[in-house]
């Protein structure tokens, strides 16, 4: 998994307490309320963004953020420093979201990968040639397109392309095969490509 974005900037926040993140973690293990809050401040944005992107719902994302941090604080005494704290927290947050989605009964990944075209799948792009997307995607449109993905596609896309998990990690978390993970990711990207091309065409029509 790649390093957390903006981590260096956020780390400065613990300097207000005169503590490094490692020191804040040690103190939090002993119930230091200020350090709990400092750790929350450092990591809340990333955890919340993850929850929001995976669920597509603000209220759910906030509830899941709350649950993720509560679980973190309950388990923080067991953190041994074998991995980076952010990695540990992130994995915990992902598990919280996945557990929530399972309880809701939302499809995560098809356990039986079918090679037949899915009704909700993207159009097969066999022979058509459109203009390439390079240079035409802006952040807002991409976020909107991700939000409108079917939940199963969205989860895989968020975990792999945004959060940087490898297919073997996703397969383990989702209880599917690596091949299934790759296939779902491909479908997600194809769907996004369709959505972004539509958006670009609409924009061109308005201009």
């Amino acid at each position, binding site marked *: 998994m790649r390093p957390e974005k903006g981590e260096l900037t956020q780390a400065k926040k613990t300097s207000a307490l005169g503590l490094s993140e490692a020191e804040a973690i040690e103190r939090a293990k002993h119930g230091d309320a200020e350090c709990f809050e400092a750790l*929350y401040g450092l990591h*809340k944005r990333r955890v919340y963004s993850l929850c*929001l992107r995976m669920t597509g719902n603000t209220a759910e994302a906030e509830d899941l*953020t709350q649950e993720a941090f509560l679980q973190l604080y309950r388990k923080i005494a067991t953190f041994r420093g074998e991995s980076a704290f952010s990695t540990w927290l992130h994995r915990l947050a992902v598990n919280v979201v996945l557990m929530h989605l399972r309880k809701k009964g939302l499809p995560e990944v098809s356990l039986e990968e079918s090679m037949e075209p899915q009704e909700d799948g993207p159009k097969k792009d*066999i*022979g058509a040639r459109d203009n390439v997307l390079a240079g035409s995607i802006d952040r807002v449109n*991409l976020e909107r397109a991700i939000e409108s993905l079917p939940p199963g596609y969205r989860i895989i896309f968020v975990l792999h392309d*945004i959060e940087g998990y490898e297919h073997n990690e996703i397969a383990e978390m989702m209880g599917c095969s690596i091949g299934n993970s790759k296939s779902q990711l491909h479908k997600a990207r194809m769907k996004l490509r369709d959505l972004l091309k539509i958006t670009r065409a609409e924009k061109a029509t308005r201009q």
Partner: protein
Amino acid sequence: MTCAEFQKALPYIIETGGNAEQEEHLRTCTKCSDLVADLKYIAECAKLLVPMMDPSPRVWDEINKSLEQEGLVRKATPRGRLLEPTTASRWGPRRLVPVAAVVLAALALFVYRNQTGEKHVASNQAPEPAAVASSAVSVHGMSDADDQQVLQQVSAQSPSMRDAYESNLKQVNSDIADAQKSLDQNPDDADAEQSLRDAYEQKTMLYDMATSRSLP
């Protein structure tokens, strides 16, 4: 290789690369190469999606509430201060610090007097903080009757130490009076609170030392 065959294999080769035939098709087919370029571009753009939004403040409020309910946190004392300033309260630090210190000092005196055979129920007759503070410093910078008693005991047991004890008691009583005066003028003065607390603790230690010296 046809485009259909290439695109069927694409999910599994886009990151790692394909075999020679697939690579050859990619090199020669503009439609498939455009498709691959688009998919890779989408993936690259996704990597740049920095988390931008914070959860609402209520999230932390709920977390904090749960942590307290579950007993997972203890209130941290601010760095450099042992007590948090509080809003005006009948039992705020301004009241509790001197009360606690007087109780400690009274307990030390209770032990001391018991050891010398005198009966004195100090622990449940702790004077009001204001009374203690106001009587803490006499004209000569000496404390109240209890201080006199401590000095008399020290004189009896270790005459050479009396002057040192007297000097220390004068100093600590003066510190108590100064800190109390500052706190009276500004109840939110955290430094004065800390000074008052420190001064009472020092006085307690002096009593402890005096009583321990008088032990057989």
